[in-house]
């Protein structure tokens, strides 16, 4: 408990936590104005059906773009201690390295969840105001709930990488290069294989798993609103495939489990390396 209280104070006595909230809020507000813009630009009379609310879909896609901030926040919160050499003091005053590790991972999860909530709140507010068509409340809430969980998990992954690498710049490079570039390259390689089984592996990558988890419910809900003679059979899954680039994506729950396993891997690496590291 002492370690957690200390980590909370540590996190909220510097600017990082709210500085990262600024781009998160702005991007989410801009991106979720899309439904309203779309409604204004497209002549609704040309479409045989009423345009459904785009908010759950646009919010889910926004969250997938912003989840990197949760990972970055977790990484900085954990690895910043190595950069500023405060880790020495941290280990001297806490009751053990295990307590420090646990507290840091929990704080990273909380910070990630906070970012997910703020992004959802800002985006939902703009989306609800901008578009006349209102979303199904359950769809929107499920999107937000899954998004917050995915943000929390990515916060933990970031902190885990930070503690495992033990160097802020190195850990940030690992997280950012993987999330922004690395996973795309691996996905393309997997999707270009001839075997469907290999194609399906793309759904087991951590970034894709989080994306699929967040997008699946709003995509299915959106597809249900379109008459099946227009959308065709299995439109929900096709929409998820189109939005995430994953072949035969697993369900939302399975995808969350996949991301949880990756999170556990990061935590394991963090426990292994941070328990043995010489602080010189």
């Amino acid at each position, binding site marked *: 408990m*002492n*370690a957690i*209280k*200390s980590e*909370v*104070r*540590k996190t909220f*006595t*510097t*600017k990082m936590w709210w500085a990262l909230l600024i781009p998160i809020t702005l991007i989410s507000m801009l991106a979720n104005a899309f439904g309203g813009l779309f409604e204004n630009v497209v002549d609704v009379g040309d479409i045989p059906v009423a345009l459904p609310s785009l908010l759950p879909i646009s919010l889910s896609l926004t969250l997938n773009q912003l989840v990197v901030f949760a990972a970055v926040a977790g990484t900085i919160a954990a690895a*910043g201690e190595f950069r*500023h*050499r*405060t*880790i*020495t*003091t*941290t*280990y*001297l*005053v*806490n*009751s*053990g*390295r295990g307590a420090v590790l646990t507290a840091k991972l929990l704080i990273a999860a909380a910070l990630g969840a906070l970012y997910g909530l703020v992004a959802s709140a800002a985006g939902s507010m703009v989306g609800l105001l901008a578009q006349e068509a209102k979303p199904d409340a359950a769809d929107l809430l499920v999107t937000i709930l899954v998004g917050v969980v995915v943000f929390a998990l990515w916060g933990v992954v970031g902190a885990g990488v930070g503690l495992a690498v033990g160097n802020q710049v190195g850990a940030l490079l690992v997280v950012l290069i993987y999330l922004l570039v690395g996973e795309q390259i691996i996905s393309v390689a997997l999707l270009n294989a001839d075997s469907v089984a290999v194609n399906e592996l793309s759904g087991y990558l951590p970034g894709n798993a989080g994306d699929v988890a967040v997008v699946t419910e709003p995509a299915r809900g959106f597809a249900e609103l379109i008459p099946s003679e227009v959308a065709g059979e299995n439109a929900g899954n096709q929409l998820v495939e189109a939005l995430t680039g994953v072949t035969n994506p697993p369900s939302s729950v399975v995808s969350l489990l996949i991301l949880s396993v990756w999170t556990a891997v990061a935590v394991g690496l963090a426990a292994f390396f941070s328990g*043995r590291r*010489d*602080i*010189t």
Partner: protein
Amino acid sequence: MHDGSGRIIVNQISKRFGSVAAVNGLSFSVEPGVVTGFLGPNGSGKTTTLRMVLGLVRPTAGQALINGVPFGRLGEPAKVVGAVLEAQGFHPSRTARNHLRVCAAAIGVPDQAVDHALGSVGLAEAAARKVGGFSLGMKQRLALAAALLGNPQILVLDEPANGLDPEGIAWLRTFLRGFAAQGRSVLISSHLLAEVEQTVDHVIVISRGYTAYQGSLDQLRAGQRARVLVRCPDPARLAEALSKADVLEIDTLPDGRLAVTGAPLQKVAETALEAGVPIYELTEERADLEQVFLRLTSGQFAGGQPPFAQQGPPPGYGPPPGPGYGPPSGYGPPPGQYPPQHPPQPGPYGPPPGSGQYPPAQGGPPPNWGGR
């Protein structure tokens, strides 16, 4: 749990970083009630040793115990041992008070302890300022405040005088002496003996990862030989008389004084009287502790003072040639030459070359001439 003794025991501890042996089988103990100085040149393994004691670095072999257990099993370590280490960092945009609040929460002491600690190191007025704007001395004080938060039984300080002004050093000295006087333990490292000479009771001297000396400072002082410095109008005659009286370790200082080792002051005075040499000045000089320290840590003289020992009559004995004589850059008499104050004089003027206790023998500066 720990035994509450306030004792640190380091037993055959070693640390290798790759191929570099930073610490080699070091053993020592730190007792409560005294200030123990941990001395050695830079790079001798002090910081690594202290970090092993504090559980920050894993020993390759051996162990370090605080109150009978390794640091990691102290339970609430900051309530047993407080530490101020070199390169201990602060987040530049966190205020001093917030830094201590973070520590206080981890230690499990109430927030009132924060203001008390700030006051006790003289930082109360800077409490709301960001640490990024602090001077090195203020950071040292803040680190000390953090170390004191848990009201520990043992204090470990690594080079605490760095960055402190003379007033701060004097304050720290008084503080540490008071801390030890309460029956608590202090371990303080330094690369300069003079810096901690007035603070410490016991010293542990390490050199290249080995223990070179462990014991009280008084013993270290007492073990040193004194030399007698004589100013007289005819040093050559006095030197000859002394060597006839079996006093063989005689040296000439650049200012013309004789430095006699291995004979008491009285004997030098009596010999001079018998030889009819008037004496203008006669002083006994104890070896500077810093020199002792240098010899312990480097294994040989490393400059700073002329060697106590002799030079044999060199081949080129006589009036020195023009260029190149005189003490170069202030380091003792030039080897192989006499200072110009002395008339040329044949005869033995000390033991033969090579018989002395210390290098240099004739011919050139010691290998580490002028350097440390």
